[in-house]
């Protein structure tokens, strides 16, 4: 009998490791070869892409296990998996195939094939090959050079028969050592385009970074058409084709209009103006339909029937867009489905491809102006747009044709976090009243947070948020505005007794006018961070604190104002004495949500200045001193 001397034996949970693993830097890909070949499948009578993906892994430490994970789905089949370690297939080699859980997606047809590649001694070579078939060229959209591991050398080749019209668009090649070679294979009447890249750094995940299509070198594969075996296949030769395919998908939805009409009437029963009716519909979908995404094959691209979304009270962006549109159409409005890509995606409809969009909303053509209704944004009002879709190209349903518009870029005033405090000194405390207003995405952030918390803890959570978790900032008599109407701003008023911001030494008071000090710890670690920093949304933080100077006191040591202004952001802090009031005014404005790496040094310098300014106090001294 074996006695186990340790109580806990560490379990290596392979799947979790495979999916969520941060790549071990002890392993690299010494060579990678991906071959893509367009073929015509006589049996299934369609054009397919055969892909052979081979990576050779090696390690510079002992006992490195590389979790090999390969995605597939209804359109990509894994035909064969091979694995050799130092030219021998491991005895226990057994790839597993499993459902792949994706954040925010209830169910997806995405699957993974995974297995551990154990590289025991230094310099072991693990050779892994996947042979796959893509059954529809529409879904063959991009090929990346970068991997989760450093790549010493990578070759990507495309064998494209002359009957296949494909454009290979090179993205993010600048600064990369990538060579291209084109040859012609006369026997197969095919062009072979080979790209070779050297010394590619590993892909890295950083918070608030642009999506991978902005960062890593890759090739967009734009499959346009094929003429083979006396058949013509049209893919996305132009945006017209892409729209036609989308239109065909949505035209077969078959909503039950009786149910929809009844609901539309019910929602707008006592409303008379157009705007009231439109808002009633939009806010109903926002508030009553939970986000549950099903991405199962073609269902991942076709909206659920509106009456089904209504019945289930859940749906994804497509379902919500379809429901919103159908309800509005039932009321006689000109509402349409709209496709778009969020700012996670680097491209737009200039390159027709399935890769350019990932979202659907409803567009309402109202008195010649298009209003966009995105019910997935739960707490934004009409005419308010989330950062992720602002300025993005949007493909709008328009019968047989389409409209190509842009989502408006919100005014700077859309997102607003405004606080005004009127305080006085009383018994070593700052006592007074505070009014707080949140608009736009600031409002959405607060309300999302509040609604994710259990009801019985919501008040406590709000107090903690308003006090910045500062126990000496005591809030009483808190009144929060109703959250029933997304049109309206969120407001809070409360009384405050703040002991943390005032210190007395002798007869003098030292006042810290700002308990929040936003961005004070926002310096970027330039030694570690590789990618641009994208703020979640445009910000305008405005605070004003008015402190009544006690009788027979004066304010001294007034800090110098801070005024930092550039095209990307502004920091303004100033102190004024107006009569017997000391007024602290702060404005922090993020005008450009994209902070590039070249601007990090300047950002850090400005954050340092901001921190210094925040860490100033005002002195209130007796007039006699």
């Amino acid at each position, binding site marked *: 009998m074996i*006695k*186990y*001397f*340790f*109580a*806990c034996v*560490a379990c*290596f949970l392979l799947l979790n490791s495979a999916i969520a693993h941060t790549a071990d830097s002890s392993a690299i890909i010494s060579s990678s070869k991906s071959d893509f070949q367009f073929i015509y499948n006589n049996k299934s009578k369609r054009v397919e892409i055969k892909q052979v993906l081979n990576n050779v892994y090696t390690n510079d*430490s*002992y*006992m490195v*296990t590389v979790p090999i994970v390969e995605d597939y789905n209804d359109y990509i089949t894994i035909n064969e998996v091979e694995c050799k370690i130092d030219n021998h297939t491991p005895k226990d080699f057994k790839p597993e195939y*499993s*459902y792949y859980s994706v954040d925010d997606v*209830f*169910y997806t047809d995405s699957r993974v094939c995974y297995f551990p590649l154990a590289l*025991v*001694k*230094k310099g072991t070579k693990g050779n892994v090959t996947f042979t796959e078939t893509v059954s529809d060229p529409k879904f063959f959209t991009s090929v990346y050079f970068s991997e989760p591991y450093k790549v010493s050398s990578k070759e990507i080749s495309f064998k494209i028969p002359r009957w296949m019209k494909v454009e290979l668009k090179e993205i993010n090649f600048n600064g990369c050592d990538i060579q291209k070679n084109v040859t012609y294979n006369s026997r197969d009447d095919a062009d072979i385009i080979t790209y070779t890249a050297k010394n590619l750094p590993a892909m890295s995940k950083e918070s608030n970074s642009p999506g991978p299509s902005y960062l890593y070198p890759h090739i967009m594969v734009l499959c346009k058409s094929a003429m083979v075996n006396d058949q013509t296949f049209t893919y996305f030769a132009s945006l017209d084709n892409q729209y036609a395919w989308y239109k065909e998908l949505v035209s077969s939805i078959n909503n039950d209009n009786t149910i929809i009409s009844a609901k539309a009437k019910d929602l707008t029963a006592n409303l008379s103006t157009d705007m009231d009716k439109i808002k009633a519909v939009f806010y109903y979908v926002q508030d*009553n339909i*939970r986000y*549950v995404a*099903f991405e*199962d094959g073609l269902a991942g691209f076709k909206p659920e029937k509106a009456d089904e979304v209504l*019945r*289930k*009270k*859940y749906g994804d962006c497509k379902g919500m867009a379809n429901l919103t549109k159908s309800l509005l159409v039932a009321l006689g409005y000109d509402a349409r489905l709209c496709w778009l890509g969020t700012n996670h995606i680097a491209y737009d409809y200039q390159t027709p491809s399935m890769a350019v969009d990932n979202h659907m909303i409803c567009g309402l053509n109202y008195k010649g102006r298009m209003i966009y209704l995105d019910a997935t944004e739960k707490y934004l009002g009409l005419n308010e747009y989330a950062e992720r879709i602002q300025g993005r190209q949007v493909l709008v349903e328009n019968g047989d044709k389409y409209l190509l518009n842009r989502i408006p870029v919100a005014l700077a005033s859309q997102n607003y976090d405004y606080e005004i405090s009127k305080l006085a000194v009383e018994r070593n405390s700052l006592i007074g009243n505070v009014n707080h207003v949140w608009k736009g995405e600031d409002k959405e952030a607060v309300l999302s947070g509040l*609604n*994710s*918390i*259990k*009801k*019985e*803890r*919501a008040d*406590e959570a709000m107090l903690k948020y308003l006090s910045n978790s500062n*126990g*000496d900032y005591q809030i009483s008599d808190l009144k929060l505005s109703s959250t029933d109407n997304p049109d309206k701003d969120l407001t809070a008023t409360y009384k405050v007794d703040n*002991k*943390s911001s005032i*210190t007395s*030494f*002798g007869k003098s008071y*030292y006042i*810290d006018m700002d308990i929040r000090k936003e961005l*004070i*710890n926002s*310096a970027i*670690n330039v030694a570690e961070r590789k990618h641009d920093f994208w703020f979640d949304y445009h910000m305008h933080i405005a605070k004003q604190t008015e402190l009544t100077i006690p009788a027979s006191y004066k304010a*001294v*040591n007034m*800090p110098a104002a801070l005024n930092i202004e550039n095209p990307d952001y502004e920091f303004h802090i100033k102190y004024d004495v107006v009569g017997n009031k000391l007024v602290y005014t702060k404005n922090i404005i993020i005008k450009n949500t994209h902070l590039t790496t070249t601007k990090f040094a300047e950002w850090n310098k400005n954050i340092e200045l901001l*921190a*210094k300014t925040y*860490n*100033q*106090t*005002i*002195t209130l001294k007796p007039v006699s001193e």
Partner: protein
Amino acid sequence: MKRLLPILIFTSICSSVFAQSEKEKKAYTDEAAHLQTEIWGNSLPEFNATKTPTSLDKESAVILARSYSMSRASNGKIKFGRALTFTTRTTKFSIFHERVKINDKSALEGFATLEYQKRLDQSKSELFAKFVNENKTYIGAKVIKPSGKEVMINTSEEVLIKNESKDQKGKLAIPDLQVGDILDYYICKEDVADKDDGNTYKDNDNLFFLVDEYPMLYYSLDFQFNKKLKVKTIYANGAQHFEENQNADGDQLLSLKLHDVPKYMRQLWTSPYREYPYIEIGSAYDDDLDKIIHKNKFEGNTVMFDAQKTVFENGFIEIEYPYHSLETKYRDYFKDKKALKNISLDSSMKVLYNVWKYDVFCQYALRDLEDFPSVKLRAANSKVNATNVCMVLTNLKVNFDILLVASRNSNSLENVFGYSDFDACIRINGDKPMYMFFDDIANHFDEIPERYQGEKVIVLHPKRRSASEYSFTEESGVLPVISADKNVVNEQLNVSFTQQDMQKLKIGRVVKETGAMRHDDQKVLMGVDDIDDGMKSAAKGQDIDARYKNYIGRDIKKFIAGIKDALVKEGTEKSKNFNKEIKSKYDQEPQQVSDCKIVNKGLDLSQPVFEFNETFVLNNMVKRAGSNYIVDVGKLTGGFLKLEEKDKKRNKDVYMTAARTFKYNIVIDIPAGYAVKGVEELTQNKSNKTGAFSSSAVVNGNKLIVTASRVYNNNFEKAADWPSMVDMITAASDFESKKILFEKQN
């Protein structure tokens, strides 16, 4: 957020064990329909409730009713497989039924998804016999709207996230569920298994806390066991008992009905297994524990502990333990028999403990290389190691006892059910008692881990009868609580304003930790290389090459090289650990971190104090007021616990980690041309029976010396003494807001 439902095992008639045929699918559908009628047709009034008391209107959700019922039957069966086999067929059937009022979006997210193992068939065939091992799950759900309208959920809307013939996992998003609705759902599981394993108490042990995340208006538990099964229950912390009956077939029936079950309140310093009522119930068919109980005539509330204790005692079979090897290594430490003979008992036992620790923690396996940093987080198996060391001590003719104890963070000793519910240690009976606990790498000889301090123990006096039998006499006792002055964090901070910018502070920090206060930082800041070096030195151990020189294996050289590499790599990662430690202490990213060093590893009693240094710069600790500067002196301690208003009242006893002391000595350079103000505000002295807080400040030349000390006298306080604790906690947290003015002199 998904609500994951417990897997309950039921018995029912098993269907074909191979690919799911149409017949099987129909059988499944029919059974599902039958269950739906049974469960919703026979509902108690509580499962028809639609109203909740107004006092619960602010709750995220209210469980109107919950019931769990389980039936189990086990019988012996003869199977003609490859050999004639005697096996056990167990059938289990359970129903979890819940009716919940959803009051907010958080609860809606939590309850709106059901995820379950729909079918799992692991049956096998051997020649003429089929060994069944199958389980099936049936679900049902309905939504009751505020108007009273009931909407039956079509469970065929489920998606199968795994859909193999023998393995299906399902997920169902409940349609039409909204805030204000009631969700009424059930999950039935049936399980049929022909196997010998899986029939013991260990595999059929359910624990039910009689509190919940949400308030429950009605909660029922019902069990039915056939007469061949033995059933054991533990009722802990005043839990109400089952009503026990029998039916005409002799089945054992246990039933409990509760009303108005309170919500579990998340509070600081609680021990749920000691403070909340729970029931642990297990059943077994042919478990050796029942033979032990029968043979020894154990009875009463502690029958399971008595049986498990006997299992432990019966495990003293010398051939199964490598104690000779440990004893040899111990003797080798001395090199010289005379030295061994003349050494005092406590010194020799220190050596034995260190040799044991080195032998267990500094041996590495191939799999350790996959995640080498986590090797230092291992914990020893107390019972196995106590037995092993006991055999060495018997050979050495040392006077000792074995103590059995339960952790304060888990069940008490009286409520032991499973073998893992208690631990073992050794007490050396010298001039004073000395303890050997087999725990983590940081534990010293004669150190009692905090989770056992103050706990009742069973003291076993062993007597060797033969190589395969030890006998024991026993008595009870209590482990001492180590006083606060032995569990100390002592920080010396030398603080100065940086030359370039007086709004930044340069801090040289020296930290010394003893007792229970060492362990966490030792495991964070030291690498496996530090530990290996430290223990090798303490136990006169060997370098890696020598350590494995007698190992045989094709890849042993690669393995040794791998270990050496991993140890070197550990050494390069340490600065990150120090950074993290500073950031977690001061809640901000430190700058210019340097001089980070482990001065004393504190791994054994030759160097009992864990000591480390670091130097860094902190921003945001100094406010400027014209030419003057205000330093957040209180924050230099890293802050003290601050209670929220809601935590200032409690009715649950207080289980803290340890009695402990925190001392800070902060020396701040006063720049030339500056004087300090506010020094007198830092003087404070408060104490009561639960602890003390004191602070002071004095100017000595060009240094401001600030001291602060916080003591928690005990590791446990009664709820009635919480107000006294609040006083001390408040005194300390108030210190955090203290400031000193550095005023420019004219």
